[in-house]
């Protein structure tokens, strides 16, 4: 192969490599059951400062990705708040992550539905990306060691939480 042909082949390979790298770096794989949950540090939706899933190590955490513009999230929010009221405590909490949303809209949503569980803000969708979500709402149950034990795309309801999530949690109210 001549030098010119080699250079041409190298240029094409480099270009294809660049395109593949671009596609791979944009994509993300969904966090699977049994894997470590990402602990991206995020701004708190209310009150300032930052928070992260890592702060809840030692507790079961139901990570809920939501957004104020999402209609299923509106249906799901009262269910999650009721679940937090029943199960929330030193051993369990719901952790809301408001993703790709306007801060004021997110705050208004949390007030409207009286959400008492902690809320983080993921404006650029980086945390949602690291979990590999494809939309909102999505839920991930993370155990006290930070391992994902259950996950589901789409909204949850009372029946679903009772049947799918409660069996993982400590028997007495935590």
């Amino acid at each position, binding site marked *: 192969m001549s030098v010119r042909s080699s250079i041409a082949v190298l240029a094409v390979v480099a270009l294809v490599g*660049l395109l593949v790298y671009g596609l791979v770096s944009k994509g993300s794989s969904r966090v699977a059951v049994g894997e470590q949950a990402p602990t991206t540090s995020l701004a708190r939706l209310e009150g300032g400062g930052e928070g992260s899933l890592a702060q809840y190590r030692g507790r079961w955490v139901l990570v809920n990705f939501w957004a104020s*513009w999402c209609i299923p999230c509106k249906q799901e929010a009262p269910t999650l708040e009721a679940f937090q009221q029943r199960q929330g405590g030193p051993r369990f909490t719901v952790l809301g992550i408001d993703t*790709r949303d306007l801060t004021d809209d997110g705050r208004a949503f949390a007030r409207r539905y009286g959400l008492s569980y902690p809320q983080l803000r993921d404006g650029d*969708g980086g945390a949602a990306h690291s979990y590999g979500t494809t939309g909102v709402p999505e839920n991930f149950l993370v155990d006290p060691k930070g391992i994902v034990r259950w996950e589901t795309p789409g909204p949850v309801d009372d029946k679903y939480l009772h049947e799918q999530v409660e069996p993982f949690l400590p028997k007495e109210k935590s």
Partner: protein
Amino acid sequence: MKTAGSKPVGLVTAVAMMLLVAFAPTAGAAPRASLIEIEKEVMCPVCGTLLQLAESPQALREKAFIRRLIAEGKTEAQVKDALVAEYGEEVLALPQGSGFSLSAYVVPIVAFFAAAIALALGVLRWRRAGGDGGRGRPDPAGPKGDDAERLDADLARYDL
């Protein structure tokens, strides 16, 4: 009492004053932001398309947010800054000037110069070869082998 040069100086001063009056109000003012212009230059982060093309619930919220900022008198740059503060750098339609996104600027430039160099080298070679790569020029040494024999035979046949 007027001097001889006072008339041109007065005229220049008058023109300068007129120009000053004409441009003074607009010189310091930033252009008024418009939703139509801004939505061509920012993304709907959820849809992955230009905001201009998006009609999703998130896009409608984003448009309402921009309208509100415009109504508050914010400039286009201030609106974009506010969008970046809410959604991050990816809300801007133009690729970022760092990381992998930098390749969006660098690759076309490198490709342009590589193509220009290749074209220039090709033209130089073509010109050195006589304009047609030397294919149409006769060999100064004359034909060789069978061609030489055939030529000699033809010349002998037509020799008058």
